[in-house]
């Protein structure tokens, strides 16, 4: 059996799954100490089902903790950055486009050195070990041991990053080093930004992951545990300590993967209605469609493959203004169970209107029996209109598509959605995100520029697929289960020799799961 946990800003959800069946589920408030909330959710979900903890094969945790640390500028370790590429790249040094407050916290300790590659694999300049050693000494003298290393076109050739890491380790034995080639794609500043953020989150990651482990130990759960990544796949605990940035935006991914699983659909629109916002995303072949543009985290540009979601200010706690009629974006949020009319409060929320309309029986429905029927109809219509516009925005073709509705605020969806072929509210919809975590697979990616003058297109594709599969297996996938789920080829404008960027993603089931 597997346990999936989603630690959100407001709630920590947990589900216990036996194969494809949901055995039990729970929703508890997220606590300041994330591990406590997880321990409570685990206790609830286990007690509820009465199972023996020895039958648990794995615990999968999705968390927004690391994203929040960057957004709130908390628990970040000062980090140095070494970039290899001189004489190129001088005009835009590392962290150049960071918000100043964040740069102050992280330290702005940046160094440039020779090295780097051209797009076709030639060296920009020769690697100079002594230069890197001198830089390492300076970093050591500054008292830093968190370091990010980037090199121009390292997704094509990462040797210089690796050689530098070795030298830095010889100078700073306890160095905590992130190589940009391990976590990012082509686009130097964005990839380097991600590498720096990763290094500055590692201490927090170690503490947090150890906290998760302690929570599991306390409940005598001996199974391995995993953390979910933004692409809907898992990493094991050790890997998560190394690469905390890969958890960014895993929340929306989990809820969309959960929606796919619960509905059995692989291509659909997912509408995740929460307390304050509704996130709309697109499932393609069972995975979230990723955003095409740079994504900012806490004001820093990155090029992670984030799910392409569109959010609107509509949720179960959204406030209703009567004249002129307005629904959201203001919300009572987590205070819904105190402030809404049906819970004895004095604020008119979307939940009150749905109860008054007879759609749900929540709290004290007599508290809303006096609501004007015209208002109730108008609000319900407005809610559906807001959702329809947002769904329409995310659609990939003019043909009607199925819409899966999940999340705690799903009761808001009461009618038809224009452009939807059907509306599916699967069982267990409030905990779709925890289910998404529980069912996650492990994956690997390859993103490189191939010159099709030297290789045939098929050879290049095979190489890229092999690389992606190897990475999936290294991440813990069972070799026989690895599947290529995404191949993207982008011919590069203005370059000769049919230079083509190939991006491949492979996923597989966890070994033993």
């Amino acid at each position, binding site marked *: 059996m597997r346990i999936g946990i989603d630690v959100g800003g407001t709630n920590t959800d947990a589900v216990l799954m036996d194969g494809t069946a949901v055995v039990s589920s729970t929703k508890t408030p997220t606590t300041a100490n994330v591990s406590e909330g997880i321990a409570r959710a685990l206790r609830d979900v286990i007690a509820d089902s009465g199972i023996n903890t020895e039958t648990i094969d794995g615990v999968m945790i999705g968390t927004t903790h690391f994203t929040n640390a960057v957004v709130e500028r908390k628990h970040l370790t000062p980090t140095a950055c070494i970039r290899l*590429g001189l004489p190129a*790249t001088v005009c835009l040094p590392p962290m150049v486009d960071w918000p100043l407050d964040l740069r102050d916290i992280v330290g702005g300790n940046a160094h440039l050195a020779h090295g780097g590659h051209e797009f076709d694999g030639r060296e920009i300049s020769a690697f100079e070990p002594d230069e890197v050693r001198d830089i390492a000494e300076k970093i050591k003298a500054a008292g830093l041991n968190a370091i990010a290393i980037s090199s121009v*076109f390292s997704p094509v050739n990462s040797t210089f990053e690796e050689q530098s890491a070795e030298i830095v380790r010889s100078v700073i034995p306890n160095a905590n080093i992130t190589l940009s080639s391990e976590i990012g794609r082509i686009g130097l500043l964005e990839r380097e930004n991600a590498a720096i953020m990763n290094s500055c989150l590692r201490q927090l990651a170690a503490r947090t992951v150890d906290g998760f482990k302690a929570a599991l130990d306390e409940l005598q759960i001996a199974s391995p545990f995993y953390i979910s990544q933004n692409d809907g796949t898992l990493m094991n605990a050790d890997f998560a300590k190394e690469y905390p940035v890969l958890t960014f935006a895993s929340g929306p991914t989990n809820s969309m993967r959960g929606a796919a699983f619960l509905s059995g659909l692989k291509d659909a629109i997912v509408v995740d209605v929460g307390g304050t916002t509704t996130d709309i995303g697109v499932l393609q072949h069972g995975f979230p469609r990723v955003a095409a543009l740079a994504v900012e985290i806490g004001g820093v540009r990155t090029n992670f493959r984030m799910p392409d979601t569109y959010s609107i200010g509509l949720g179960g706690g959204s406030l209703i203004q009567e004249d002129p009629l307005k629904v959201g974006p203001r919300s009572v949020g987590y205070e819904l169970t105190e402030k809404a009319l049906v819970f004895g409060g004095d604020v008119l929320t979307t939940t009150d209107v749905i109860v008054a309309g007879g759609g749900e029986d929540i709290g004290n429905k007599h508290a809303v029996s006096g609501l004007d029927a015209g208002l109730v109809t108008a609000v319900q219509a407005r809610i559906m209109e807001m959702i329809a516009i947002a769904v329409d925005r995310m659609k990939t073709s*003019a043909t009607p598509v199925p819409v899966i509705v999940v999340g705690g605020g799903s009761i808001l969806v009461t009618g038809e959605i224009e452009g939807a072929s059907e509306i599916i509210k699967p069982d267990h919809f409030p905990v779709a995100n925890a289910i998404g975590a529980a069912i996650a697979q492990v994956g690997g990616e390859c993103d490189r*520029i191939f010159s099709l003058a030297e290789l045939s297109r098929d050879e290049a594709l095979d190489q890229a697929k092999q690389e992606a599969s190897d990475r999936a297996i290294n991440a813990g996938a069972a070799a026989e289960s690895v599947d290529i789920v995404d191949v993207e080829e982008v011919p590069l*404008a203005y370059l*000769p020799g049919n230079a083509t960027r190939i991006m491949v993603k492979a996923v597989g089931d966890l070994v033993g799961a």
Partner: protein
Amino acid sequence: MIQSVTLDDTAAIAVGAGILGTGGGGSTYLNRLRLNIELRKQGRAVSVIRADDVPDDAVVCAVGGMGAPTVSNEKLQEGTEIKTAVRALEDHLRREVYAIVIGEIGGGNALGPMITALQTGLPVVDGDSMGRAFPELQMDTFMIYGLAPAPFVLADTHGNVSIFKRIGSAGQAEAFARSLTIEMGGSAGLVMPIMSGADMKATIIRDTLSLAKRIGEAVLDCRARSIAPAEIVAALCNGEVIFTGKIVDVNRRTVEGFARGRLKISAFDDFNKQMEIDFQNENLIARVGEDVLCTVPDLITLVSLEDGEAIGTESLRYGLRVAVLAMPAPKELKTPEALAVVGPKAFGYDVEFSPMAGDLL
């Protein structure tokens, strides 16, 4: 007209250059960052002069970046490539350059020349040779009106400089510059053409830097007041909003190194009322049914309905809510000589150019 560019102006100029980019011209993000850094470092503004302030016998040169955006975003420049090229040119000519000229006002190349101006201590001329963005070197008013493509200079990150003393045609300059750029690692600084003040004044499209700033300021002002900017921008450019709606289809392929494609936009109130736009890096032809509403060289730019940000052809996708701006080309692009190079037929479309009324500025 503007006399200088300071840190307070770069946001507006970047937005305006994006809108004049007609879907191409590349992102303004990195060059704006670089310009801001250079402005802070130098502690002074970019000095901007009118084209007519340049003496007839002075030497001026247009500058820009050459190469694939994917490469430029990864192998960032050293930063003084173009300055090195300008200095090498001065040595070669034994003449001092009087001012820097912007080759292309649409997109990221609008901002780069101001960095060179700051580094060399030279002023930049308010104007450019496209009034928008185009994909190739020969598609500018300097070449169209017969200025010599040679000498031209390319410089790379290592300080290597190549001066072409003679070249047969602008088309050959394009071909040689491309292949040398590849050898230089896929991105290079370009100085082309080099011309006298008199020749520049006879061929340049005047005041387009000021226009970019005016457009950008209008957009930023609309954002601050939460109103849709499209109509206001169109009016500033003597153009009009020819369609609003949602992108419903994007069909693209890469042919001979250029992105070509067609997009469809549906009106909000009637799905069957659709605009089709053909693009090749830039937006080229806008149609509703059989009616051609606007063609190159007139400007066709898609802006995001809410915030007026220009949408590049590489970022087009289903669902974006857009306004389509059509703006008349500057008069310099509408002569028979110009249309032979930048008219719809030059891009392979069997469509007559039916100009919008008026001129860009």
